[in-house]
């Protein structure tokens, strides 16, 4: 039985790949919400597209994806968040960008539109902007409560966003996030863009996940146009993706310890991170590997000296990383800060469909490399580590285990790197076509959905960062923890601002 079997459909989109897309009426839309509420699938994404709203669903067993589309006849659609809170911020973003209303939604405040664009609904029917209204934070009442506003400009070298803490003494009773500050209008720039330009925009959506975004975008284009990618290119893409994962995990493990004032770990993992970026530069000519993956393959082959550099890097990691892991595990003062701090319950992770280390540290083992999977991961052996504790410590351990898995993957990639071409030009289809791509970034699954016109240009492209389903859980994780543990919790999530704000 497939996901769409229990949904009444009006028609099926013909040019949508690789998963089906069904156009539904109100009854079908409500049945899809039922599936979410019953936990038979999780929300993989939700986005506007001129007069319609699409919702991507991921089956409970992760084996199947389906997209349902509701045509908003009068500029509105039945709210999903009224019954399934994971859709809340997505609905608010859809209203800001498209002007489509979610009827019955519990929260109608703006989300990405902070009142400075000079217009409303930039992707829908553009309207003149009203005078900006002050944002209404959720009311907090009670004796002895005080508020701590933080941001958008933060104290460290990090992205901007606003956090409103309400604390009772040292204990946080509520955190409310206010994001949207780095909204760049990427999806609007995508409209009408030729593939080359669109791939570049996708690559620059979130700098720490540039490989993953380019990977997901390329997949979406290739599946929409039914293009084939040379096997060597898929292996090189996976090599880049694993190097990106290593670099970010080293950075995060050190930074989490640094937020508990354990600078030694930060200094040591920074050396490993720098080594990884240098190996990436030696292989592909760019430390973050930006703009290397394009629809049809990759831009350049791995440099001859690159393989040796990566092997030297792996040897260095194997000689030093286990000792650092032992140091992490045996330092009581550090464990005191990370164990039982910032717990996310497994039911929340399931409800929000949170991916990456946030999901896997709380028992949800979704990994886009495994299922639905993409080339070349089907030919490679790796484990997806899963833990249940859901605290900062568990999110550190997931990263540690993933470092080990990524090293094993890189070994396999280098040993079995196929010979041959690295690029085949993508031939545009004569008619409009749609594709959905999913790549596993270091922080979770990146979804790219797009529709190309008959000339190979992008008509609509939606990029969904994993952070959409992780940010709300950080609000839950910090509750009842002390204010001083917020940096630890926040770093253990390391959500993206740029990827989320777009």
């Amino acid at each position, binding site marked *: 039985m497939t996901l769409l079997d229990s949904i009444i459909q009006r028609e099926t989109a013909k040019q949508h790949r690789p998963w089906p897309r069904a156009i539904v009426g109100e009854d079908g839309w409500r049945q899809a919400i039922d599936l979410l509420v019953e936990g038979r699938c999780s929300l993989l994404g939700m986005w506007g597209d001129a007069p319609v709203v699409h919702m991507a669903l991921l089956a409970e067993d992760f084996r199947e994806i389906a997209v349902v589309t509701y045509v908003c006849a009068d500029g509105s659609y039945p709210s999903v968040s009224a019954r399934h809170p994971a859709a809340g911020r997505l609905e608010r973003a859809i209203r800001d960008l498209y002007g489509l209303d979610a009827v019955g939604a519990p929260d109608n405040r703006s989300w990405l539109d902070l009142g400075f664009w000079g217009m409303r609904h930039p992707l829908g029917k553009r309207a003149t902007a009203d005078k900006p209204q002050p944002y209404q934070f959720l009311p907090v009442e009670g004796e002895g409560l005080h508020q701590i506003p933080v941001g958008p400009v933060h*104290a460290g070298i990090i992205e901007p966003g606003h956090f409103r803490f309400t604390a009772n003494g040292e204990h946080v009773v509520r955190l409310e996030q206010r994001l949207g500050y780095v909204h760049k209008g990427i999806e*609007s720039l995508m409209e009408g863009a030729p593939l080359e330009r669109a791939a570049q925009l996708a690559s620059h959506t979130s*700098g720490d996940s540039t490989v993953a975004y380019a990977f997901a975008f390329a997949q979406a284009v290739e599946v929409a146009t039914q293009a084939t990618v040379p096997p060597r290119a898929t292996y090189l893409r996976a090599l880049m993706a694993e190097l990106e994962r290593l670099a970010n995990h080293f950075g995060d493990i050190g930074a989490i310890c640094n937020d508990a004032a354990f600078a030694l770990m930060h200094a040591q993992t*920074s050396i490993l991170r720098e080594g990884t970026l240098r190996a990436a530069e030696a292989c592909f000519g760019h430390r973050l590997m930006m703009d290397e993956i394009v629809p049809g393959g990759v831009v350049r082959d791995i440099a001859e000296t690159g393989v040796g550099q990566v092997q030297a890097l792996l040897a260095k990691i194997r000689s030093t990383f286990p000792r650092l892991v032992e140091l992490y595990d045996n330092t009581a003062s550090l464990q005191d800060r990370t164990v039982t701090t910032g717990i996310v319950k497994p039911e929340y992770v399931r409800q929000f469909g949170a991916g990456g280390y946030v999901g896997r540290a709380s028992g949800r083992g979704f990994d886009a490399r495994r299922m639905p999977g993409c080339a070349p991961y089907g030919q490679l052996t790796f484990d997806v580590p899963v833990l249940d504790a859901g605290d900062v410590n568990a999110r550190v351990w997931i990263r540690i285990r993933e470092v080990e898995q990524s090293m094993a993957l890189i070994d396999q990639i280098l040993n079995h790197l196929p010979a041959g071409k690295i690029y085949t030009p993508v031939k545009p289809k004569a008619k409009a076509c749609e594709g959905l791509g999913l790549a596993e970034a270091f922080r979770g699954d990146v979804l790219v959905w797009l529709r190309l016109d008959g000339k190979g240009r992008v008509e609509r492209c939606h990029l969904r960062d994993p952070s959409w389903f992780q940010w709300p859980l950080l609000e839950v994780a910090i509750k009842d923890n002390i204010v001083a543990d917020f940096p630890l919790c926040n770093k253990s999530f390391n959500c993206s601002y740029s990827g989320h704000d777009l």
Partner: protein
Amino acid sequence: MRRTLFESFAHGPLTEPAPAPDETGLVELAKAVNRAARVKLGRSLSIRQVDAGSCNGCELEIHALNNAFYDLERLGLHFVASPRHADVLMVTGPVTKNMREALLRTYNATPDPKWVIAVGACAADGGVFAGSYAVAGGVKDVVPVDLTIPGCPPNPRQLLAGLQALLQNAA
């Protein structure tokens, strides 16, 4: 822990020699800095980084300046948590309309004399995001800029060369 510490002592520093100051930056700066400011500040500068809308790529490379290979603090440069403690603002990203106000307030909160460095291709002119309804432009479209460090993102050596240029003129 002991073994890690002993090894660090034994193998000597990983820190690499700093690159020469960026010549193009020097010309740009010579106009911006006056002698009085140099005398006041000595050979040390405090930097406040402001992300005005970047993709986070520039932040990653600015972070790398603090690692053992680049060790920014040996040059008398260090990052501070508040604009009120800063001499220099390092601004990244195209300035989004949603961050414009925050950038202006941060600039106004920084005491004089102060310098602004626009870091990266987006900070120079909006980069790949130029022309969007949500982007105000490059950093110079919002606050006066004294030095631009190119690159997408600039790598740590490029950042160091740019900062060296600032230090030679400003401090």
